[in-house]
């Protein structure tokens, strides 16, 4: 097996792990915010809703796109690219799609960074606290898996003529 084939298999493994982790990442809470008279365990979707409800819809759009749309889009696109590997069809489109995935892929890290900034601030004792929750681990794992999966796919494979 060539090096490129090993990397293809690794990409498959990472993609499938990412897909398996996507559900717990979205069902489990990623953080708990405690405020006087307020105790909220928020899932990723809960964060989107919370932003929207307090009237900060640009924030909710950013979180929704970065944390829900981008990972799903990445899983589906990389899945399609890996599935089509070795096929002579749609070469130009696949190349373009791969570039799009590479460009937008890392934006899904916004939620993890957001959590880290909030956790820092939430150490003011009784007044306000922000606590990370296990869902964040799953969420981070999905990010790492999807980013690493696309890094492991060699774009040149799209154009190689090989009897498949």
């Amino acid at each position: 097996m060539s090096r490129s084939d090993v990397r293809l298999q690794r990409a498959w493994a990472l993609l499938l792990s990412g897909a398996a982790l996507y559900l717990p990442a979205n069902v489990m809470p990623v953080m708990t915010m405690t405020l006087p008279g307020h105790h909220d365990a928020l899932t990723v979707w809960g964060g989107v809703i919370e932003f929207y409800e307090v009237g900060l819809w640009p924030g909710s759009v950013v979180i929704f796109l970065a944390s829900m749309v981008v990972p799903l889009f990445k899983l589906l696109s990389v899945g399609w690219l890996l599935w089509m590997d070795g096929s002579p069809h749609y070469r130009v489109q696949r190349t373009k799609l791969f570039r799009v995935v590479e460009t937008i892929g890392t934006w899904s890290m916004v939620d993890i960074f957001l959590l880290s900034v909030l956790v820092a601030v939430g150490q003011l004792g009784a007044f306000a606290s922000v606590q990370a929750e296990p869902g964040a681990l799953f969420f981070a794992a999905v990010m790492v898996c999807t980013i690493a999966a696309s890094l492991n796919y060699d774009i040149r494979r799209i154009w190689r003529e090989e009897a498949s």
Partner: protein
Amino acid sequence: MSNPATHGWRTCPDCEASYRPRPLAPGHQLRCKRCGARLGQGRKSDSLQTPLAMAVTGGTLLVLANIFPVMTFDVAGRNQSNLIITGIQGLVEQGYGPLAVLVFFCAIGAPAIYLGLLCYTLSAAMMRLRLPGLMRAWRWVELAEPWSLIPVFAVACLVAVVRLDLLGTVTWGNGSVFVVLLSLCCLILGRMLDRERIEVLREELP
């Protein structure tokens, strides 16, 4: 300057089609005819001085962004200044070590490797110095680049401030200016170092 073995021909890094680089007028681009990859860009000067200056600036900004607080949060008379590292410490304290490692790597580690080694390799290429480990350093630059997520971090800070503003008073610190400048620096560097330049650089590394 071109590799004599290939008679001036290169292969597209994305689809391996052959092409011959040609001088481009400033503002013009060379794209791969088969797959559309951006292969080169005409610019006013071909010297490595501008990217090197950018990398040095970026390195300095990275240090500054980590020394000065990004924001200060006030609630009920108590306040807390936030460095980038504060959040990472917070995650460790709450028992989320892996998340802390990830945030540290993407917000501090990878940018430091990327910018630091870029300064090293670019200055060596420019001054034609045979410094040790140049090829390895360049390999690390390419590995660290996709994980260096400063612009994403900047957006996250923005969202966090908007969120926290509901809970108390948030004041931007000096660090935030450096974070914004640093993300611009990283974005510009990414555009400057296009494929053709990287190929040329690789050949020029002593």
